[in-house]
């Protein structure tokens, strides 16, 4: 099976901590941070490397601040 690597970048200063991305993440890769941004919201951060780049978080994000990358590595036969 092909191995999939995903990664996300969150623009933390624009994040409002609504937690919608955390709810929709199938791999439980996202969580709220312990610290706050300049607006006073706890922001969304990536807590592990399980991300598959499915882009669910980016699609549901009301602020459109999540950028998603995905790399599929095909195994040599």
């Amino acid at each position: 099976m092909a191995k999939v690597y995903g990664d996300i970048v969150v623009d933390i200063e624009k994040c409002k901590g609504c937690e919608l991305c955390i709810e929709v993440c199938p791999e439980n890769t996202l969580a709220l941070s312990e610290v706050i941004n300049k607006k006073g919201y706890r922001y969304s951060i990536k807590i592990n490397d399980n991300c598959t780049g499915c882009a669910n978080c980016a699609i549901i994000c009301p602020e459109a601040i999540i950028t998603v990358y995905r790399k599929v590595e095909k195994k040599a036969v």
Partner: protein
Amino acid sequence: MTDNKINETGAEDIRKPEYLVYQRPRTLTETELHYCPGCSHGVAHKILMEVIEELDIQETTIGIAPVGCSVFAYHYMNIDMQEAAHGRACALATGIKRTMPDKYVFTYQGDGDLAAIGTAETIHAANRGENILTVFINNGVYGMTSGQMAPTTLPGMVTTTSPFGRDVALQGHPLKISDLVATLPGAAYVTRHSVHTVANVRKAKRAMKNAFEYQKQGLGYCLIEIVSNCPSNMKMTPLEANKFVEEKMIPYYPLGDLKKPEVK
């Protein structure tokens, strides 16, 4: 099957343009949205702008901003926008579309704007079969003025002006604008969607894409209703508000196409 090992390729390694699968549409400006956390307006803005980017019609689209929470839509959408008087977005769109028939024209309105003060303009624009698209955000309260009862408030729903819940004997029944518009011969495409789950966001986006294509063919008035949340005025967290949309609003406002043109 996922393992918890550190990504062998390194996290920074795949942050390259060739592996990009999703980024903020260029048709949205870099301005921070003023909406409350978790508000459906943000998602609706985003999918509308994604559609405009994908169809490559940024230069030829004119949007009409309403009065309501989304009054500053022209700050966020990087296209030509015009602010309308309260409720008069469809009337203004009519004028713009008739003078510039080769442009794509859409209005973006909330329920206070479209279903209360602007009902006449909306229904007559639909009845005349104006070749415009209306995106109707239905969250059941007046969000901008701090949560008063709207025509679309559900029976029994608590708002600041119906503190014991909406009583249909006293305050009437919620207005289903989309069902009303669907009965008019001038309306070409009337559909109801929501943006509370990823699947529904994708469906709403496809509907918007269809609507712009119907407008290109000149089929008539298109209305896309988006059943939305309002976490601040429903006094809920965004997740609870989305659950409310799922459990209470969608049974009253069932999703799906109410009217669809026959595609040639």
